[in-house]
């Protein structure tokens, strides 16, 4: 799941100072789950903005709306409709960066502002705590490392064992909260009876499938451009 944190209030408010009819758009999937951009947060932020502008005697209209996902045309259509019909002149989206782009692509001259900082792909370690687990590098190597990713979970993204900052199994960058991923990999490979595999050198990674190779796309031929839909 994509994890995001809400931006500081004053930053968000700053984006829309010059605008009049503002829509706060929540997203009903990842950011709802991580409590940063669902319907409840959208309403709260909208209310906060109304309070803040009222206190400055600025008369603005601030609406809110939340859709299931801001990364699918069908779901964002109602938002686009509202923007048009209600003369919205700025949108704050609480979706991850995908939502910001997806809306911006479709809203022409209407600015779209990010309400959250999209941080990582993570999992719930315990209720209320999320940790990064994947970096979306485009070429997974976790089959070599017992299923544990040294890119997402090593501060230095080392491929062939720990650095000198690994102390008693913890990472020197943040020993309290972060285990050394190479300790985890070592333990795991032992458990799997594959410790010897770690003697094989992992060659330098081809970073092209990651961002370095340009904008990434994925096509699923099974449903892509169905002829009968586009005669």
């Amino acid at each position, binding site marked *: 799941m994509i994890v995001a944190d809400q931006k500081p209030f004053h930053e968000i408010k700053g984006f829309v100072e010059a605008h009049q009819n503002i829509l706060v758009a929540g997203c009903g999937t990842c950011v*709802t*789950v991580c*409590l940063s951009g*669902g*319907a*409840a947060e959208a*309403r*709260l932020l909208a209310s*906060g903005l109304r309070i803040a502008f009222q206190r400055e005697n600025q008369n603005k209209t601030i609406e809110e709306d939340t859709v299931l996902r801001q990364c699918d045309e069908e779901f964002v259509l109602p938002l686009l409709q509202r923007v048009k019909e209600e003369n919205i002149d700025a949108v704050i989206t609480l979706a991850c960066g995908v939502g910001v782009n997806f809306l911006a692509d479709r809203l022409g001259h209407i600015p779209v502002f990010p309400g959250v900082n999209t941080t990582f792909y993570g999992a719930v370690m315990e209720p209320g705590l999320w940790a990064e687990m994947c970096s979306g590098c485009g070429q997974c190597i976790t089959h070599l490392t017992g299923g544990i990713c040294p890119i997402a979970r090593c501060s230095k993204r080392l491929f062939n064992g720990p650095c000198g900052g690994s102390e008693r199994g913890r990472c020197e960058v943040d020993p309290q909260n972060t285990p050394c991923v190479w300790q985890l990999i070592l333990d795991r490979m032992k458990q799997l009876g594959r410790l010897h595999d770690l003697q094989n050198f992992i060659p330098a990674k081809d970073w092209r499938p990651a961002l370095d190779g340009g904008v990434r796309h994925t096509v699923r031929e099974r449903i892509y451009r169905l002829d009968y839909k586009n005669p």
Partner: protein
Amino acid sequence: MDNRSVILPGDPLPNCSAACPVHTDTRGYAEAISEGNYEKALDLLLQANPFPSVCGRICHHPCEKECRRKEVDAPVSLRMLKRFVVENTREYRRARRQRIEPTQGKKVAIIGSGPAGLTVAHDLALLGYHTIVFEQDSQLGGMLAHAIPRYRLPLHALREDIDDILAMGVETRTACRVGVDISLEEIRKKHDAVVLAIGLSESVTLPIPGSESEGVFPGITFLWDVANGHPPPLGDRVLIIGGGNVAVDAARTARRLGVGQVFMACLETPEEMPAWQWEIQEAREEGIEILNSWGPKAVLSRGGKVAGMELKRCTRVFDDHGRFAPQYDEARTMTLDVDQVIMTIGQRADLSCVKETELAVERGRLMCDSHTLSTSEPGVFACGEVLTGPGSAIHAIASGHRAAQAVHHYLQTGERLVLPREDVPSLGLLPQRVASLARKMTRREAALLDPRERIGDFSEIESPFNEREALEEARRCLACATGARLESSQACAGCLTCARVCPFGVATVDRTAAMPAEECQACGLCAAECPAAGIALKRFATNQMKQTLGEILAPARAVKIWTPFLVAYCCLYETTSRKYLKPQSLEEIEGSGILRIMVPCVGRLSSLDLVEPFEMGADRVVVIACKEEGCLYMGSEELLGRRVAHAQKFLKEIGLEKASLQFRQTRGSAEASWPAIWKEVQHETAPESEKESLK
């Protein structure tokens, strides 16, 4: 969103309502009491039952027996709550009385003015029929007026209920014995339908040697005479034969007439006795001696007068199929010297009024179909105990409701209505795993006079709940099935937050969230935390608050308001009177600059609820929770504390001062501590500009 707890057709009923023969909205009236809306509680009571005063006193309260709170600690004292409502809404009740004009152009005669007959009259009058009740006695009320002793049911309580019914325009002919003063046939000719609600007004007699002696009284006659102010002269030792409620009433009545030694002899063992256990207990406290497993053999007499009673050992009352089939050990007997014997071994109908009519009677019973309530003659119906056999007032009332339906149908269509068998789905037991997590709260019992004082006269022995007691007891209601509900599965992201915060382990997520109504304890924590704002609570929605605030703070009005304007969310469970539960008038709000919002546990307030008042113009918000560790819901205090902190941080980012949103706890009672809290929060560190406008 009002009437949140209204039961919709098809909904399983809370056990209390399902167990009540008239399905009183028990949960609804408990909720209304806890909200200080005693009038609404009365409306709910009267919707189901024209005899709430009577039932508040003497109902055998099957609702309590089934109350789901028994899995937590003990049932809610529902009967006493009902009594509290009627005793605290007298004026309102008089004012809501309404004469109903008969618009149907049809007349219905009802024979018998017991609870069954009067209920029929009430229901049919409501439907626009002209109704006339014939009663042989000079007083209306049947057994309620004549048999149930005054120390349990004072006449004025009965009067309150009857006055309501009469006020609708129901006509009565008292001291008119059908079959003697007027024939049933004549009544049939003059009316479009007739309902026989003649009850069981005769005591069953025992054909044993000596039963004709002077000093043997049938129980009903005895109670009837006492109720009407003609008690028979009694000696110092009296024996009651029987182990049912009528026997207990007769025994306790004799004791109040000054009899020094009152005995009850019954076939049953203490556990088998048909009388209610609490009645038996109270009788024992009053010095009545119960001789269990003894059956009557002969009345001993001297000069035609009762001198004693010979009893024989009863070895078994019921056969293997649970049927009444007493067996005796004739060899084991005992004699008891007594001056009078009162027989209370059962009742039967006095069917003399149907003699010489076409109505079929078989083996002393009026022939009547229990599904259509029809007798053998078209247009003649029966209900109440003459149909059902001995029961309770509330069963007789339920039977009256059914008869009214049957009569209405007959008068509209000319046909018999087959009333469906009563089969109401209920919520079932509260699972132990949930019950064990709910906070225990001691049940408040009715306070009874000291037994020595009780037997002095026929004054009522039970004291009503005072307001504080009633409010406390009403809060014990688990408000079954009025909790959280996922508004639409679309909104749910399956984030598990509800499951993680639910203190009762009730909320689960399987693709989408589920809060089974029959388990949810209505604490509201899941709704407050749901990031999709997708969980609704059936009780307490803040939209009412928004509306009120909107009205008050509308720009045109704002000038009149004292600032700083305070919105106070208060835990309604802390009030001991309805002083602060009553809705505030606009003048009061404007005058004080305080808007109170009573919340059934402030733990259910969301961050938005805490912030939104500022948007609507409030200057301060205070959340006043219950006393420390006083919360009904485990975990609520902690979560609320964190939520308030979150909202405070947010407000600070917006630029509001720190004191804007505050969290306080009640000390002592709400009435004692809240005003000081309000003043403090309202004035504390108020900027100079605001202070000037304060009084």
